[in-house]
């Protein structure tokens, strides 16, 4: 059997790896971006000079050969779902028995005037990086449109090369549709203390042409004109499925799949960013364009392809990011606009760069989620608490179990508990449990 995978991102590659683990099928991965799989999340570090492109490749070139995974560098122009064959842009075609669509995302563009000029670009593909590189020499200012995770990464990139950056953010506060108010404010402060020109409640109106088809500045919704040599468009991404919209494949915003990641076409699966779940879990979105879900989908699809049907189960929500120097982790439900029953306990360190937020149900006291800024928590411990729906007092008492900061770091559990007891008039006592052995025995209990 020939399994063909379009897209060599994390989801496609994970699918291939697991198909290989589970079977002896012939496997081919097609991508037009790069020959070898690289970590998209590490794009920024190449530009910043922390790594070379090859350092972002999780597997050495021999890995593919050794695992008999064929790599084809080409673009798929058309899919013949009936004939089970693909038309590639190098004028060849490829037959498949099972097809996995792992097409990823594309950067959003909202029809701004001038959005297709030179020196304008998003940050998604390796080619976007080349574009940034091309205009970076002698660049005197860059303007970034959109205040999400990718926007702040792009700001950090330019900043690392001492290029002044202006960030236009539509919202009242940075990423405040996801981050609760205090965390969002913390990041606003941090962006500003990093000498990035953050303009809140400001949108892009137009990109100005310098006469030769290249951007030379932007006009904002406040009618300010900002001269710049590069405009970064980072106002989110959408599933990269436009080219499939006119086919028999069921595509809405993304490729629609059922619980087993099957599309409406026989033997065609979809995974990763390009997927729209028919029935997302309660409280979860139908499109979750993050690394971790892509990886889990890839694995799940492999099982289904290899005749071991399993349903996609993303487990408890988790994510992480880094806002310049502040690390961020989230486990469970921590919402910017929480529903009635969410009680949220927030503790912030006096230095204003570390915070812990613990969300629980205000009726039952059951733990619902964790938000961490500048402090690391242990994934498995948080996950177990959330899955077991434990009482928030139990979480607070055993907070040391969750601490994942490096050795010798100051620990703040005592401060946190004190604040918690004060706020809720409780008398939770911190246990000393926190050693690795205790963590393991807790996880096994």
């Amino acid at each position, binding site marked *: 059997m020939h399994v063909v995978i379009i897209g060599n991102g994390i989801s496609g590659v994970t699918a291939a790896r697991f198909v290989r*683990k589970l079977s002896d099928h012939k496997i081919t991965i097609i991508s037009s971006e790069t020959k070898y799989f690289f*970590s998209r*999340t*590490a794009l920024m*570090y190449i530009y*910043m*000079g*922390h*790594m*070379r492109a*090859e*350092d*972002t*490749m*999780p597997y*050495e*070139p*021999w890995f593919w*050969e*050794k695992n008999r995974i064929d790599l084809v560098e080409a673009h798929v122009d058309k899919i013949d779902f009936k004939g089970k064959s693909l038309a590639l842009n190098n004028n060849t075609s490829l037959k498949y028995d099972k097809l996995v669509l792992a097409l990823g995302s594309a950067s959003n563009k909202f029809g701004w005037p001038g959005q297709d000029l030179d020196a304008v670009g998003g940050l998604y593909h390796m080619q976007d990086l080349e574009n940034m590189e091309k205009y970076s020499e002698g660049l005197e200012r860059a303007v970034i449109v959109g205040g999400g995770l990718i926007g702040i990464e792009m700001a950090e990139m330019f900043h*690392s*090369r001492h290029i002044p950056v202006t960030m236009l953010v539509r919202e009242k506060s940075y990423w405040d549709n996801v981050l609760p108010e205090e965390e969002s404010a913390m990041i606003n402060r941090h962006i500003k*203390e*990093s000498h990035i020109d953050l303009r809140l409640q400001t949108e892009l109106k137009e990109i100005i042409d310098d006469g030769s088809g290249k951007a030379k500045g932007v006009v904002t919704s406040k009618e300010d004109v900002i001269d710049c040599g590069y405009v970064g468009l980072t106002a989110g991404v959408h599933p990269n499925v436009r080219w499939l919209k006119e086919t028999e494949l069921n595509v809405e915003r993304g490729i629609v799949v059922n619980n087993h990641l099957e599309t409406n076409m026989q033997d065609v699966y979809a995974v990763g960013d390009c997927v729209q779940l028919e029935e997302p879990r309660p409280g979860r979105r139908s499109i979750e364009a993050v*690394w*971790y879900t892509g*990886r889990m989908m890839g*694995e799940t699809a492999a*099982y289904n392809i290899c005749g*071991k049907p*399993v*349903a996609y*189960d*993303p*487990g*408890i929500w*988790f994510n*992480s*990011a*880094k806002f*310049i*120097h502040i690390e961020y*982790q989230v486990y469970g439900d921590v919402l910017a606009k929480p529903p009635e029953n969410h009680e949220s306990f927030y503790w912030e360190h006096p230095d204003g760069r570390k915070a812990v937020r613990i969300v629980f149900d205000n009726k039952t006291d059951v733990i619902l989620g964790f938000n961490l800024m500048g402090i*690391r928590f*242990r*994934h*498995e411990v948080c*996950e177990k608490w959330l*899955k077991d729906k434990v009482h928030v007092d139990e979480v607070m008492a055993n907070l040391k179990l969750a601490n*994942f*900061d*490096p*050795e*010798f*770091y*100051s620990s703040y559990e005592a401060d946190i508990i004190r604040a918690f007891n004060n706020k809720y008039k409780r008398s939770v006592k911190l246990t000393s449990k926190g*050693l*690795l*052995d205790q963590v*393991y025995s807790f996880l096994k209990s």
Partner: protein
Amino acid sequence: MKIIKIIGLVIFIFALGVFTFSMFSSEHQLTSELIKSHVTYSPEAQAAVMEAANSTGVMGKSYGTNFSFINGLHEVFNTANNTLGEKAIPSWQVEKYLIPLTKYSTAGPFGGKPNMAFWLSIMLGALAGLIYILPDMSQLAGIKNDGIYQNASTKGITLNVRLAFLGLAMLYALWKSIFQFPLVIFFVLVVGLILYWVWKSEKSYNGARARSASVSTSGWLGIAFGIYLISFYVFLYFFPHYVTNWTLMLDPVAAAIKGDGGTASHWFLYGFLYCIVMVVMGVRMMVKYRHNKYQLVRTASVLFFQLGFAFLIPEILVRLNQPYMDLKNAWPLDYDFYTKDAIGGLAGQGSEIAFLGGTSVGTVMLCWGIALTFIVVPVFTYVFGKRWYCSWVCGCGGLAETLGDPYRQLSDKSMRAWKIERYVIHGVLAFAVLMTVGVLVNRFTGIDNFGLFSAGQLKSWYGFMIGAMFSGVVGTGFYPLMGNRVWCRFGCPLAGLLGLVQKFKSRFRITTNGGQCISCGNCSTYCEMGIDVRAYAQRGQNIVRSSCVGCGVCSAVCPRGVLKLENGSSDIGERTTELKTIHISESDLKILS
């Protein structure tokens, strides 16, 4: 801030110039007093040298640099040896005479101003380093690796250039030793065959090359720095008579530490420079990682052990008439602990300690040395992992973590390098054991010839090939070429030993935080031991590798906080199971979530 950094850099370059220049800018004159007080091989030899000095015209002549003077001395000794015939002075003895003859035939560099040279080179250089480093405090604390791969000093070199440097080092070793030790050829052949086999097996996947540490343009500044370091080591180890001006500059320091009349040998010079460089670059390390307490404590610890245990305490011991010993240097890193001094040179030496029933200090040291290798090292490694030694205590590790920090990314992470590493490091360990056993057998039984070679030969091969070439010239000289832990990763026999303990019987592991890894590769890139940390982290596996020195940098650079160095007594098997990112267990297809 930027302007201050530039000033620091300019002063540093000036100081480095003074340092380099002071090596050879001295006027020398040979006198009969010098010959009388230093050439003491035999009365005839002394007379012959005296006569040769006169007949060749070297005596009393004024030389403008030490290079020309040493040429003159060679001529003198050659002439003298010709007349001495049978009774000629052996060449190793001649080389020993060159050092004091050169050192004391001059008033010092720059027309006899060694003190000025000392302050304007070493001390000014250290100050300039601090001026360059300290302004970084004004930046926000956090990971600062910006531009490392865009910098000609730290971006590294292509695989081919690396191989050329390694090849040259090997050729040099061969050239220096081929006539004395034919077995070296055998040794090199065996190593070569292993390398070739590993290389080939890697390439057999249809010619696809393993990931190399190469970059498109050259890191010429790194190459230049590498050549400078390598030259320094070659002079220091093999031609110490050329560095006497530097030792002259350090005589006052030596006198202050060792007591009146103390002078600086080239080993003292090395120890002193080592400490200075480690302090300045240690400050750099602390500034760079000031947000990370593990790094702060660890750097303070290596500085403490270098300044105290490696440098000051041994000198103070000598000043108190006790035997010289670096109390933290464990066999087999201290490869001639047993073969050189321990048994003869320590037992019964030094004063007697009353409360130990009159046991001598030397005997206590000998016992400590043995306990260090066989009890302290394994027990500590069991409890804390290899890191307690390699990145908290060891001098080689200390230099690598301070001077070498800008180069940690240059270690090769390919599977190929890992394979080579395992052969070479365990080979060196076996060599060290063999050599020590051979010498001890020889000492206690008198048997000297073990078939092809003698104990003495074994020892001198080891001392030259491993002790000098590998740990010094390649180990440190190659920092800008192959990363800062070349010696620790490929060569150190103690690291090999500790690694075995760490792998099979230790509580240490690096835990991975569930499924949080985004496979970005920062951890692998900045692992100085060339461990592909990401390969484990992205599968949710804990990392247990014999080579990990626990520097903690992978954990520091990870942008998602995925890695934590930890100790725990929980099942060793549990340290490496993969279970976390995998949401489907393969055995029963149950959904674990």
